[in-house]
């Protein structure tokens, strides 16, 4: 009997976690998949779903609205990720967090943009950028640039949203890269100096390659995070002006909960999951290749 318990114990320990995850994540994923083959408007066809096979997928991949949103999302994700990474790297290289005066206060102030709720960040910046009482516009008009509606102006909205995303995400990159840099083996750096490398060469040929594993982790996490952005943009622009900042998550939300097209919503969810998954796999594979 004791033997049996010994054998079963590992599974029993994992079971509660598995059950919860299955109910909340696995079952919905499967349901999503099957629902994506139906057309189901929740309000109009209360009782019935119509099987449309791949119809939703065709509609999605041919719909200008959906494709545009996808493009906007990728632009936002790529730009935000790239800028915050470069900034974080630059900061990490220039200012080693651990040796700064007032270290605790400094780190605390970095953590706040990171840890705040996306919605709160959205409101903080929406207020700052407000054309009437926002402080940013105030200084802009003082400097002679005139009053601008950053979030309402079609040519500025996306850039503004990207800027806020960068603000929120740079601390993470900065902190992680600082930790990474601190963990670099001193011998490698010394050796390269002896070989006559200047700071720039040392950066490219020694530091970055050694940092690669961490960089990949940072990029994956942050990509998933920015790709799935919802709350922040929901608050800042609600997708406007004129759908110019309507990222995929917002569009999905609108299709599912404003237009009640649940079948199409499920289809978009599947597409979204696939894209995220593919990117993640690509990243992981690139790490594997480096290692071998």
């Amino acid at each position, binding site marked *: 009997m004791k033997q049996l318990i010994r054998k079963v114990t590992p599974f029993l320990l994992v079971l509660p976690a598995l059950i919860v*995850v299955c109910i909340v994540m696995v079952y919905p994923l499967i*349901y999503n998949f099957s629902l994506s083959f139906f057309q189901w408007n929740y309000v109009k066809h209360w009782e019935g779903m119509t099987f449309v096979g791949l119809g939703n997928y065709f509609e999605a991949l041919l719909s200008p609205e959906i494709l545009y949103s996808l493009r906007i999302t990728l632009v936002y994700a790529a730009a935000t990720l790239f800028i915050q990474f470069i900034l974080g790297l630059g900061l990490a290289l220039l*200012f080693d967090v651990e040796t*700064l005066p007032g270290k*605790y206060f400094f780190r605390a102030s970095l953590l*706040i943009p990171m840890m705040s*709720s996306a919605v709160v960040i959205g409101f903080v910046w929406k207020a700052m950028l407000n054309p009437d009482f926002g402080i940013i516009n105030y200084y802009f008009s003082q400097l002679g640039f005139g009053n601008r509606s950053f979030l309402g102006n079609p040519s500025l909205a996306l850039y503004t949203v990207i800027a806020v995303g960068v603000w929120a995400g740079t601390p993470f990159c900065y902190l992680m890269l600082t930790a990474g840099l601190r963990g670099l083996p001193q011998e490698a750096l010394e050796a390269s100096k002896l070989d006559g490398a200047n700071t720039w060469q040392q950066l490219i040929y020694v530091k970055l390659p050694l940092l690669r594993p961490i960089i990949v982790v940072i990029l994956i996490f942050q990509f998933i995070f920015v790709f799935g952005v919802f709350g922040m943009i*929901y608050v800042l622009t609600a997708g406007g002006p004129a759908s110019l900042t309507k990222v995929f998550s917002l569009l999905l939300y609108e299709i599912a909960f404003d237009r009640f097209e649940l079948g199409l919503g499920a289809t978009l969810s599947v597409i979204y999951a696939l894209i995220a998954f593919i990117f993640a796999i690509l990243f992981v594979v690139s790490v594997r290749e480096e290692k071998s």
Partner: protein
Amino acid sequence: MFSSKDKGFKRDLPGLITVTIGAAIIVVFALFPVIWFTLGSFKTEVQLFSIANTFVFEPVLENYVYAFSTRNMFSYLANSTIVTIFAVIFQLAVSIPAAYSLARFKSKSFELLAYMMLATRLLPSFVILIPLYLLYLKLGLLNTRFGLIFAYTAFGIPFAVWMLRGFIRTLPREIEDSAMIDGCSTLGIIVRIVVPLIKPGIVATALLLAIGAWGEFIFALILTVSPAARTLPAAIAGFQEAYGVKWGAIMAAGVVALLPVVLLVSVAQRSLLRGITAGAFK
């Protein structure tokens, strides 16, 4: 590059000044929006518009009074607190045994399980928004605190298991092995040996889980509707739909939502940073 440790303070004054100025600029960038927002929460509508007096003004509490008395802030605050605390408790209760199992028992199927759990982390959470909504509709879990807690528990498990597994792996097996020889049950080992040893790791993980649950928005928005179960983030977003944009109430509510985060960040900094960086250094 710039570090105040490289040369003696006295000899490297230009370096030190550069570092301090740089640090100050960074801090301003990071904190100013939040500080300005907080100041705004103490202003009346009129004061808010007089930008020349951004920093020098007579603070008022009317926004907070308004939010708490007419906008159900107490309920939202209570909901957020309850949901966060219970979600973290359940997450840990479920993830610690699972993490132990995945850390100690080697088998092909378990490795696969671990990777599958990790895989769910790679998906943006709202891909399951629609089915979860429908499921909850059927089960009558919409607009319930328990429903939210249950969902958050699931969201946090992959992260928690991954983190805790990493921490457990750093423990030497001898202690557990000798306990097992002494006849201790596996559960006993977990509770009496492993948990105390990885307590810092558990705390770091719990803090990150708490911050995640506290600030979660999408599912709070979809799965809850009324002050019976709605949490702060969703509620604050609602402030801008009803009566136009009530900035006073939004700012007050926003500060209330920010407060725990600021407190946590000041008090538990070390722990948080350990948690964040541990995630990367697999």
